[in-house]
C-alpha cells in the first residue's frame, strides 16, 4: 500500500495560487486584460492563464504597451504566441501617443520612453474601459513591491497609495471597485526569479532567443551592457564591442541591460541564476537605478 502524503511541490503550489487568482478576476471583473510584453514573466503569466481556462480560450485580451523600442526577436515571438493561442492583442503604442502629441519625447543620451509608458497605458485603459489589468510583477523584485497586495487598487490617475491598501486575507480577494478605479492584479506575486526559470524549464515553455547567450554589439553604461540600437545615443567614450551576453529581463531596448553570460540552455540559466549575486532589476534596469526609491515613486504615478 502506498501512503499518500498530499504534498505539493513549491512550483505546483505557486501555479495553483496563480490559477486561482486568474479565475477569480475573470469571474468578478467585467473587462480584464493581461499585460503582455513578451518578457519571461508575462510569458509565464500567459501560460498560467491558459491553464486556468483550458480548454476554453482566454476570456480576456492581451495588451502590449509598445515603446517602439523593441527587440525584434521579442516582437516576432509575441506575434507567434498570439497566433498560437488565438488570443486577442491590443497594442498601446507610445509612438502613437507621441505622434498625437499626448506625450513629448525625451531627448539626450539618457532619453527613455519608460515614463511615457504610463500615459500610454492609462489612455488605453480608458479607451478600452479595462477594469482589471494582470501584471507580472513579483514581490522579490524590489522593496516597494514586497509590500504590494495581489489586488492593487489604482485611482483615475493610476496611482497606488501604499498606505491605503485593503487587507488581503486567506485567498479571499475583495474586487469591488469605486467609481473611476481599476485594479492591477499580480498573479505571480509570490514567485521568485528562480521559480520562474524552473517553471519555464518544467513546463517546457518557449522563450525569446534574447534570453539565451548570444553575440551582440554592446557598450558599457552604468556598469551594464546596453545593446547598440537606433534608439540610444552614445557618447564618444561609449565604445561598442561584440560580447557574449544574455538578457535577464526584456523591455525597452534603450534601457534594458544585458549580462555577460555563456548560458545557452535553460539549465545553464538556472545554474547562473542560482549563483548570481545581483538582483535582476539591479543588473538590468537603468530606470531603477536612478534612486533607491525610484520604483516606489513610479508606482505611485501609475506605472505597472
Amino acid at each position, binding site marked *: 500500500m502506498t501512503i499518500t502524503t498530499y504534498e505539493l*511541490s513549491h512550483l505546483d503550489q505557486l501555479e495553483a495560487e496563480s490559477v486561482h487568482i486568474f479565475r477569480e478576476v475573470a469571474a468578478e471583473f467585467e473587462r480584464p486584460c493581461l499585460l503582455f510584453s513578451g518578457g519571461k514573466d508575462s510569458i509565464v503569466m500567459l501560460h498560467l492563464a491558459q491553464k486556468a481556462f483550458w480548454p476554453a480560450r482566454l476570456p480576456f485580451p492581451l495588451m502590449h504597451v509598445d515603446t517602439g523600442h523593441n527587440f525584434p526577436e521579442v516582437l516576432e515571438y509575441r506575434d507567434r504566441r498570439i497566433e498560437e493561442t488565438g488570443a486577442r492583442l491590443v497594442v498601446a503604442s507610445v509612438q502613437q501617443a507621441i505622434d498625437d502629441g499626448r506625450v513629448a519625447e525625451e531627448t539626450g543620451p539618457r532619453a527613455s520612453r519608460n515614463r511615457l509608458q504610463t500615459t500610454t497605458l492609462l489612455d488605453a485603459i480608458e479607451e478600452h474601459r479595462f477594469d482589471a489589468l494582470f501584471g507580472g510583477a513579483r514581490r522579490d523584485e524590489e522593496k516597494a513591491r514586497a509590500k504590494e497586495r495581489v489586488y492593487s487598487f489604482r485611482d483615475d490617475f493610476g496611482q497606488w497609495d501604499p498606505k491605503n491598501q485593503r487587507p488581503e486575507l486567506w485567498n479571499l480577494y475583495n474586487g469591488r471597485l469605486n467609481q473611476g478605479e481599476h485594479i492591477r492584479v499580480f498573479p505571480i506575486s509570490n514567485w521568485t526569479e528562480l521559480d520562474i526559470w524552473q517553471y519555464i524549464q518544467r513546463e517546457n515553455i518557449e522563450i525569446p532567443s534574447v534570453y539565451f547567450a548570444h553575440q551582440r554589439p554592446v557598450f558599457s553604461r552604468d556598469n551594464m551592457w546596453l545593446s547598440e540600437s537606433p534608439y540610444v545615443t552614445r557618447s564618444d567614450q561609449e565604445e561598442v564591442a561584440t560580447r557574449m551576453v544574455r538578457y535577464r529581463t526584456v523591455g525597452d531596448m534603450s534601457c534594458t541591460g544585458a549580462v555577460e553570460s555563456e548560458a545557452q540552455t535553460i539549465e545553464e540559466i538556472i545554474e547562473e541564476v542560482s549563483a548570481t549575486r545581483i538582483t535582476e532589476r539591479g543588473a538590468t534596469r537603468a530606470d531603477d537605478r536612478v534612486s533607491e526609491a525610484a520604483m516606489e515613486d513610479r508606482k505611485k504615478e501609475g506605472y505597472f
Partner: protein
Amino acid sequence: MEFLRFATAGSVDDGKSTLIGRLLYDTKSIFQDQMEAIEATSKQMGNEQVNLALLTDGLRAEREQGITIDVAYRYFATPKRKFIIADTPGHTQYTRNMITGASTADLALVLIDARHGVVEQSRRHAFLASLLRIPHLVVCINKMDLVDYDEKAFETVKEEFRNFAMKLDVTDLTFIPMSALHGDNVVDRSENMPWYQGSPLLHHLEQVHISSDRNHVDARFPVQYVIRPQTNEHHDYRGYAGTVAGGVFKPGDEVVVLPSGFTSTVASIDTFNGPVDEAFGPMSVTLRLTDNIDISRGDMICRPNNQPHAGQDLQAMVCWMSDTKPLTPRMKLAIKHTTRTARVMVTDLQYQLDVNTLHRQMAPGSLGLNEIGRVTLRSTQPLFFDEYRRNRNTGSFVLIDEASNDTVAAGMIVGSGV
C-alpha cells in the same frame, strides 16, 4: 521541495528585522547590490556595523519613520525548503496587518526580548496566532547575549509564556533562545548556550511537518468559474473550475452540489496537462460531472455523506479593521465566503475579547478598529461552511463595507445557528 509560509511578529525593537536580515544573509539570499545599498545607508545613518535590519525596511515613508507599517513578503530558500515570510508590523494599530500576514501562514514566529519578558504585545501576537489557528508557534527569546546567555533567564520567560499560552489553543509550541544580532541559534547552533538541546531556528523551519495541517478529510470544492469553451472541438464541455478547499476528490466519487442538492458523479478531474487521479488542497483543477446539472459560481461540491453546514445564521469571531466606522449590531455588510458573495446583517454582538487578558466584555455595543469580538450574522443566502478550527478555507470570510468597498473585517466561523 515544499513551501513553508511563516509570519513574524514582535514588538518594536525586539529584533525582528535583525532576525529576518540574518536569516536572509546567512542563507545567502541577499544580493550584492542590495548589500551595497544597505551598507551605504548604514554609513549615512552613522551605524558602525552594517545594519541588517535595513534589508527589510521597505517603503520610504517607513524608512523615514523607522517603523514597518505594512506586511512585507520575503523569499528565501534552502536545499530543503522554500520559505515565504510575511513580515508583519508589531504595533497595536496594525493588528489588521498582522492578521493579513498570518491568515495564510503555516507557522508563526513571535519574538520576545529576553530582558523584558512577555509583554502585552507578545500576548497579543500569540493570541492572534491561535485565533487564526496557525498550526505551529515558535517563540524566539532574543537578545540572549544581553542576559549572559543565561539558561535561567530563558526558562523564566518560557514559563511566563507557557502560562499564558495554556489559555490558548496552541497545538505546537517551541521555544528557542537566540541572539539575532550575533547569529546564535539562528542558522548555526550557539556555542554560547550549550545547555539548549533543541534545534536552531532554521533547522526547525526546515523540519517542521506541515502537510498534515491541511484538511484532507472533508471534501469541499467551491465552484469558482464555469468553463464552457463552446468551440467545435469541445462543444459540450462543461467544467467546474476551482481550488480544492478540503478533502480529496477522485474520478468516480459520488458528489452532491449545494444548494440544489442534486447528486452526480465526478467524471474526470481536468487540468491543462491532462486528467489527474486525485485532487486535494490547494490544487486548482476543473471537475466534470456525469450529469448535466445547473451549477454556477458560489455553489459547493461535496460528498453526500460529509456535508458542510448550510444555513443563513452563523456564529463567528471577527477582527474589525475599519478606522472610519465601528461594527455595531444591526449593521449590514457584504460577505465574501469561499466563492460566494452575499449580504449579512450583524444580528448580535455578544462580547468583545480583550486580547491581552482574554477577558470577555459582554455586550460591548460596538467594536472599533483592531478589536476582536464574537458576533452572530444572518445572511441573505445560505452559506456552506465549516468551523474555522476544522477548515481554514471554508471557515473564513471577509466583510466588506458596501459604501466604501473596504474590507472591514476578517471572520472565523465558530458554528452555525443563532
